[in-house]
């Protein structure tokens, strides 16, 4: 991965540079018009929020049950990415909603549960940062709880009466919209893998610093 990192980073930058032009070539949505194009960044970010929650939860579970420090490092990296991509979702969504629904925010099932999911991972990071000794295990348990919430957030639009579009939208996209959407999704996913790798590397180096401090004390 180390050798492939730079070429993949260049590829990711290229994809992100091309994405706006590809999105501009997509047709206007018939009821929402121009503002619907926020969809091409908003939905991939939401997908990565869910993915990060799963990666963090699974890494935390492996850390708790197998005491794997490597899994814990991946979990921390994924936890930060969950907060970053969640922030993107929670800002771009209301900007879209202001034009499409006439309001910045609605306390409906999807929006509220997404906000709560994001807050769980903010809490995960705060416990890791300020929780003191033993906070790794407590935060790992929180991450597993956060991961368990993801299916509820996803199906909330199908089970509750909500203003948010339901889960059929991506699967029933028109042909002109499918290409730009999956292009953006692939770009975001590549970027996610690179950021996860980078952040995990930072945790590895911090672990090396701790080991060197211990070696110095001997």
């Amino acid at each position, binding site marked *: 991965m180390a050798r492939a990192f730079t070429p993949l980073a260049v590829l990711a930058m290229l994809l992100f540079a091309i994405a*706006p032009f590809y999105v501009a070539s997509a047709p206007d949505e018939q009821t929402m*018009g*121009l*503002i619907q*194009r*926020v969809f091409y*960044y*908003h939905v991939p*970010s939401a997908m990565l929020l869910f993915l990060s929650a799963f990666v963090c939860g699974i890494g935390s579970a492996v850390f708790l049950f197998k005491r794997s420090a490597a899994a814990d490092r991946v979990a921390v990296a994924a936890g*930060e990415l969950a907060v*970053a991509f969640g*922030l*993107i979702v929670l*800002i*771009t969504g209301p*900007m*879209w909603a*202001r*034009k499409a629904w*006439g309001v910045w925010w609605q306390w409906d099932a999807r929006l509220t549960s997404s906000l709560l999911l994001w807050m769980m991972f903010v809490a995960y990071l705060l416990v890791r940062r300020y929780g003191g000794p033993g906070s790794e295990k407590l935060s790992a348990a929180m991450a597993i709880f956060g991961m368990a919430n993801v299916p509820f957030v996803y199906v909330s639009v199908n089970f509750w009466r909500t203003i948010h579009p339901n889960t059929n939208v991506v699967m029933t996209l028109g042909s002109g919209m499918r290409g730009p959407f999956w292009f953006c999704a692939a770009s975001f996913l590549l*970027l996610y893998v690179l*950021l996860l790798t*980078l*952040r995990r*590397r*930072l945790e590895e*180096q*911090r672990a*090396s*610093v701790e080991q*060197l*401090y211990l*070696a*110095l004390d001997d």
Partner: protein
Amino acid sequence: MKRRVMTIVGVMLMTAGSLVGVAQQPPAGQAPGDFLPVSSLPAVEQLPAAPLMIGAYAVVWVVLLVYVWSIWRRMKKVEGELADLRSRLQSR
């Protein structure tokens, strides 16, 4: 007979009252609470989509760039600490 006259007078009064009420109503589409199509709003009151869409894309870029910058900054600090600790260990 008296009852018939009273009924006719009552109907005439009600009709006159309705006519006065209708005459006092504002033209259609201008009373408070009337539904208006958005296309008939003056342009200044329609919410433009472009600034919101451009703003949303800008938010994505800003968040990602700030996050990459924060990783880079932390990585530099840790690499400095690592180099310092290794040199201290070697000099022992």
